[in-house]
């Protein structure tokens, strides 16, 4: 195995590249990214990073790639995978041969049907360039309309308020964060935004989104609407599967991989936002996770398996979001829960533990100021991984230490 090529220079691809060297891979490593920058951290783009803007927060400086003998090609999209020649073809005409290939192509934001994509006044947020463009349009008194009440939309709302913009957030469903976040926690988040003066409009159907030189408008089906200087659409992401599909690799809501992150081609692996994989911890259910930690964990795992380790995915899904002083953390997947137990911590922080019909802990969701919930969520994650059935009374009582449950 002389040469490993990684397509996609985001968190996952970069992590995989370094992990190969940490695991003493001696062959060549080429990391290829379409963006002009070295790999950078995306989570800050909707948070403080948006406010800070230039330059992006690099995952590693150029000297670390040099030391690790990782060839990084930036600003060059990959156009095709030639499986017969075992090579990727780049937009500039070069072909790069691989012994094994990792696809870490990520995801792109879902466009609002019928809305002009990335016009000056209608934007989406995924890249550093997107964040810069949004940052430039935000100033005290500017009107920002955000379409989509998920993590990206809500984090952007909080950041935009810090920058003094007036913010309206529009969600088509009856509440914000309906995907994967319990209502009790979503309510805390929504209330916090309202305190900061964000107008949250839920349960409306958007009839049209328009923009011209003078401004932008969102029109609702009931005839009302909102005016904006800038509209940002944050309604989810679509996995970048085009290269894999064109090469005849199996795709199933993402590049389909097995528990070892191997695609339908045994020499090609996929990891991070772009892939769907079976989670044995949840009865082999096929999921796709758009999350920073998943990108890291799978980058590391893919590196091991590219070198023949043959290890399965073992990590528990984990997400976090920062809005104002609040941090929300979720471990596990809560759907399928039949019982929820609440544990109240100090300063208004609380955690919800989600148990299935057999009393097994399958998820924990928490919110609070700073890192108030972090330690207990981390312990919950370990309890979930261990398949434990903790005593609900112990979970609900803040005096009983979760670490003791883990040892039990």
């Amino acid at each position, binding site marked *: 195995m002389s040469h490993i090529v990684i397509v996609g220079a985001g968190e996952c691809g970069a*992590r995989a590249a*370094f*992990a190969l060297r*940490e695991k003493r891979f001696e062959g060549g490593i080429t990391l290829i990214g379409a963006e002009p920058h070295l790999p950078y951290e995306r989570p800050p783009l909707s948070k403080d990073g948006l406010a800070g803007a230039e330059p992006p927060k690099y*995952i*590693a400086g150029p000297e*670390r790639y040099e030391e690790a003998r990782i060839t990084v090609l930036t600003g060059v999209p990959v156009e095709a995978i030639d499986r017969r020649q075992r090579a990727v073809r780049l937009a500039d005409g070069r072909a790069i041969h691989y012994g094994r290939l990792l696809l870490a192509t990520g995801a792109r934001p879902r466009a609002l049907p019928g809305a002009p994509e990335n016009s000056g006044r209608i934007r989406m947020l995924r890249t550093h360039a997107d964040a810069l463009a949004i940052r430039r349009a935000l100033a005290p008194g500017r009107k920002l309309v955000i379409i989509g009440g998920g993590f990206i939309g809500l984090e952007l709302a909080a950041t935009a308020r810090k920058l003094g913009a007036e913010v309206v957030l529009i969600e088509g469903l009856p509440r914000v964060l309906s995907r994967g976040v319990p209502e009790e926690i979503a309510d805390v988040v929504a209330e916090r935004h309202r305190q900061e003066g964000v107008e949250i409009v839920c349960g409306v159907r958007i009839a049209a989104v328009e923009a011209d030189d003078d401004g932008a408008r969102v029109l609702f089906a009931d005839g009302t609407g909102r005016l904006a200087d800038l509209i940002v659409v944050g309604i989810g992401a679509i996995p970048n599967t085009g290269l894999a599909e064109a090469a005849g690799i199996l795709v199933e809501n993402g590049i389909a991989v097995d528990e070892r992150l191997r695609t339908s081609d045994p020499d090609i692996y996929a990891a991070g936002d772009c892939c769907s994989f079976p989670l044995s911890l949840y009865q082999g259910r096929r999921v796709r996770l758009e999350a*920073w*930690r998943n990108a*890291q964990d799978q980058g*590391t795992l893919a590196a091991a398996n590219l070198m023949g380790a043959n290890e399965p995915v073992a990590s528990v899904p984990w997400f*976090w979001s920062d809005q104002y002083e609040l941090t929300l953390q979720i471990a596990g997947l809560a759907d399928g829960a039949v019982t929820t137990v609440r544990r109240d911590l100090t300063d208004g922080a609380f955690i919800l533990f989600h148990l299935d019909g057999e009393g097994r802990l399958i998820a924990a969701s928490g919110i609070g100021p*700073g*890192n*108030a919930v*972090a*330690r207990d969520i*981390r*312990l919950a994650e370990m309890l979930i991984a261990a398949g434990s059935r903790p005593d609900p009374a112990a979970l609900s009582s803040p005096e009983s230490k979760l*670490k003791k449950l883990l040892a039990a």
Partner: protein
Amino acid sequence: MSSNWVEVCAADDIDEEDVIRFDHDGRTFAVYRSPDDEYFATDGLCTHEHIHLADGLVMDDIIECPKHNGRFNYKTGQAKGAPVCVNLRTYPVKVEAGSVFIAIS
């Protein structure tokens, strides 16, 4: 190099296999009690982002950052892999008459 011993807390104020935050003179530290009942001290903030390590979880001789799970060996300060790559500074600790002291240089 002159060291300055500063009293942190009573030895019993830190649980076994746990950590507390200690602020002194504009600086912040994390002070640990290991599962084998020894005491250690490091800088209080993760070297990846400015996050207080004392909100994190202690497991054996590892402290894990509460934000991004960066791990350090709190006995040596050694960074244990992504996303952290810069080691933590450590400080000498002593326990005298039931109190914990750290040497701040």
